[in-house]
């Protein structure tokens, strides 16, 4: 698995992930919006998946639309709970203004296990998303005029420790397979997708809060034309949580390592040429 963050200069945060033959680029754009009236103190987050025709010719035209919809739906559901991603950190003025994160997911190459790869890339991109500080605000009648800081380093990072990772489990025969390849996906009639919250400790080493070390399910969904017995379903969920935990730890370590390299200016950028 290859992961590189901060690859797109015009995005607030970005990440590119290559998992075997699956290639995904995620860019996070930030914009200012008015919060929803029923949630005045929280921001907004929105996912867009674009299946480019580069990946497979099937995606040409509107071919990939259904797949793209199902992935973005899954992500939206996984990020819904405040335990997974706290939208309150995106608030600027309660009831007046908030940040809206547009997360654009570009699928460059499709080699199986898209959901998992997308969730990993999104978490990595959010981890290095920078939101500028608000320097001053002018109240003009009911309107607010914001003055943002121009300095790109004068910005805050998001707290994404608990952001969920999706794990796909393909049922082949009697067993459930984690991280399926495209061939394995073709073999199975049903797959289960489990979204599991991350652990803050892996992302913020000096975080000492003892709570929230427990992994929780944020979303569960099924995909494919088959069905399963409930016992298999229970086992698969447990298996998915175990897999997600180790995946989360590995992602956290990799991201921290890269950040340290960034600070020391030692990082060598690979970009898309490999």
């Amino acid at each position, binding site marked *: 698995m290859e992961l590189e963050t901060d690859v797109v200069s015009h995005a607030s945060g970005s990440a590119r992930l290559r998992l075997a033959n699956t290639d995904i680029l995620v860019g996070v754009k930030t914009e200012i919006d008015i919060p929803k009236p029923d949630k005045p103190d929280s921001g907004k987050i929105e996912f867009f998946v674009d299946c480019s025709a580069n990946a497979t010719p099937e995606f040409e035209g509107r071919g990939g639309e259904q797949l793209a*919809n199902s992935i973005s*739906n899954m992500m939206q*559901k996984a990020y819904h709970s405040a335990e997974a991603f706290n939208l309150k950190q995106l608030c600027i003025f309660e009831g007046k203004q908030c940040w809206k994160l547009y997360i654009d997911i570009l699928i460059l190459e499709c080699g199986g296990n898209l959901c998992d790869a997308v969730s990993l890339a999104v978490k990595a991109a959010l981890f290095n998303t920078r939101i500028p500080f608000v320097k001053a605000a002018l109240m003009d009648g009911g309107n607010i005029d914001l003055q943002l800081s121009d300095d790109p380093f004068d910005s805050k990072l998001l707290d994404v420790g608990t952001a969920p990772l999706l794990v796909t489990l393909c049922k082949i025969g009697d067993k459930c397979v984690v991280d399926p390849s495209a061939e394995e996906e073709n073999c199975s009639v049903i797959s289960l997708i489990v979204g599991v919250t991350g652990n803050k400790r892996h992302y913020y080493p000096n975080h000492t809060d003892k*709570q929230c070390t427990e992994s929780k399910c944020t979303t*569960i969904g099924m995909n494919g034309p088959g069905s*399963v017995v409930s016992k298999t379903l229970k086992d698969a969920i447990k298996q998915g949580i175990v897999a997600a935990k180790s995946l989360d730890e590995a992602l956290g370590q990799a991201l921290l390592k890269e950040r340290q390299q960034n600070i020391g200016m030692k990082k060598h950028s690979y970009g898309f040429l490999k």
Partner: protein
Amino acid sequence: MPLDYRRFNGPEDSVSYKRYTNKYYKGYDELYKELVDDKGRRKDGRALDEARSMCMFFARTDLISQAKGSAYIELKKTKVVCSVFDPREIPHQNEFSQLGQLYCEVKFAPFSCAQQRRPHVDAEDKSLSVALRQALEPTVCRHLFPNYQVDVFVYILEHDGACLAAAINAAGLALANASVPMYDIITSSSVAIIGKKVFVDPTEAEEHLAMMSPETEGTNHGIITMSMLSELKQVSDFVQIGSMDIECVTEAMDILEKECENIVPNIQKVLVHNVVQSFNQRKQLEAEAKEREIALNVKMEEWKKLLNAG
């Protein structure tokens, strides 16, 4: 999303008047207290683990004459209509598909919810449609109509919680009514989880609170909908949103499994009633046909006599 300009869409930035009522500003705790009274009863008098499938359930079929099969299901205030149409060739497809396809569409009526719904298809409609298809695909014998698709349309007239479960139940009933070959009766049920309390077959208010994030960290909350083929003991769809630990999920699964089985007799009753009714109808038709034949024969004899006499 493009708007339909032939309709009156109302101003873009209009808000519901309910925002300015006192009820709107109730906090989480206040809303939570309202859901259950001191005796552990919910607002509509049910116990926590009591579904609406027992005494607040109504189902019937054959209400849309144009459709091959149709069903209407009512869970007190949740009202759903479903219609199933004849198989037709899959449009815009070049390849031959071995298995038949299901096309599902879920739509909310504009007046179905507390907040007004725009007539165009939004993200929630789409995700419900996908979930419905996922639930129905394992039940239908799709190998019997290759290269054809069956259309399933669900219209939610009134939404008071558990609308996906109601949609799946209605669609299963409508498919059976349209005599689409199926492996088993499909039933579905949902629970809302708030902290330690499990609300079986939640209402809209309960669902709303379960989706809201509680102020204390680490509490379980969320909604689970599960659909089952009870005879085959197969789970055909499982949808969970929120945040909960694994024990909570497995516990809820056991409850849902039981609840799904409880709905089966309700559906069976309607189906049996249908069969009996169509038998009676056929008998009546046959009797009428016979009567007509006798009358005709009598007429023929008369004419013959007249002809012979002439």
